[in-house]
């Protein structure tokens, strides 16, 4: 049983009216129409999804963008239901990575129901699919409580799960540190890239730093990051950017 969750930015928006009508018709034609739930201000997305799962929903499909996915990710992963998406509007990086085309074309991908089980990352209990990034990284990382890694100059950090360059099905995350290194007589700065595979790590900073988990801002001095191997069932398209 399918549940379709409409984000509030696409409801009552004339820009998406026609596309929504096409999507609803196509879902009916394909025989995968289901319950429609609508997000709204003051309505908790996670509670709505939990209610639907209690009623027997086995596949949750969001209509929206990366922000919509973030609103329901924790509850989808915890409940173990299959997750799908119909990307609408801007900011749909995750859909691109998963090979889901925008708008009505996504209905056929849902109908084909190519379900993959992928790893899920967690930062301070908040789940992420793609990556955690720290644009201004001035902190130290402890890897699996065994060794410490820190940049000796200005750096940026990415912890990747599904990014096009990492495998989201290997039970590992990948920490990428890009540090500025000055070279030559003119002391020109180049970015040198370090890559460390990991299952868990902790970022500790003396002052609060900004961390983006799938684009969502978090601030703090400590971030515990780990991977949940094969933690999420997700519908992907043929054009997905990763290999299993």
């Amino acid at each position, binding site marked *: 049983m399918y549940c379709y969750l409409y984000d509030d930015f696409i409801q009552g928006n004339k820009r998406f009216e026609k596309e929504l009508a096409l999507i609803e018709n196509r879902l009916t034609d394909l025989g995968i129409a289901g319950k429609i739930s609508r997000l709204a201000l003051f309505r908790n997305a996670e509670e709505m999804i939990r209610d639907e799962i209690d009623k027997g929903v086995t596949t949750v499909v969001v209509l929206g963008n990366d922000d919509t996915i973030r609103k329901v990710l924790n509850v989808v992963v915890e409940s173990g239901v299959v997750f799908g998406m119909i990307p609408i509007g801007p900011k749909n990086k995750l859909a691109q990575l998963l090979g889901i085309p925008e708008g009505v074309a996504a209905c056929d991908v849902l109908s084909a129901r190519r379900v993959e089980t992928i790893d899920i990352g967690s930062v301070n209990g908040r789940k992420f699919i793609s990556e955690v990034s720290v644009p201004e990284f001035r902190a130290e990382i402890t890897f699996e409580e*065994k*060794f*410490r*890694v820190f*940049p*000796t100059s200005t750096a940026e950090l990415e912890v990747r799960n599904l990014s096009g360059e990492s495998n989201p099905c290997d039970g*590992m995350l990948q920490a990428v540190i890009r540090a500025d*290194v000055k070279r030559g007589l003119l002391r020109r700065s180049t970015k040198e890239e370090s890559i460390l595979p990991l299952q868990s790590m902790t970022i500790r900073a003396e002052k609060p730093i900004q961390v983006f988990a799938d684009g969502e801002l978090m601030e703090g001095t400590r971030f515990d990051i780990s991977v949940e191997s094969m933690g999420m069932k997700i519908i992907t398209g043929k054009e997905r950017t990763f290999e299993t």
Partner: protein
Amino acid sequence: MFKKSEHHMAHAQAGSETIIAQGVKVEGDFKSNGDIAIDGELNGSLATVASLHIGESAVIHAEVSAKNAVIAGVIVGNIHVEDGLQLHASSNVTGDIVTSRLSIAEGAVVNGRISMNGKE
């Protein structure tokens, strides 16, 4: 000469490679089941059951063990390599070496005992 691009390319083909580039420092017990390439700094211990590449700019203060190793940087500490060890011209090792096969380029500096197949 041991070029960074060569070992980056080699590692791109491997499974779970680790690269410690310039501008990054590691402290503690660093262990891996995959290949390791280091151009940065490391203090502590360093072990892998696969291949180890120490680049020209690397500075390592550690006990080192690996299956195979290519060294072009500075190591202060004992080195135990199960199969083959290559010391490039730019390498500078202060510590004892135990290995099965050894290749030393002209210009390489070794201050320590060398044992091969467990024999001094």
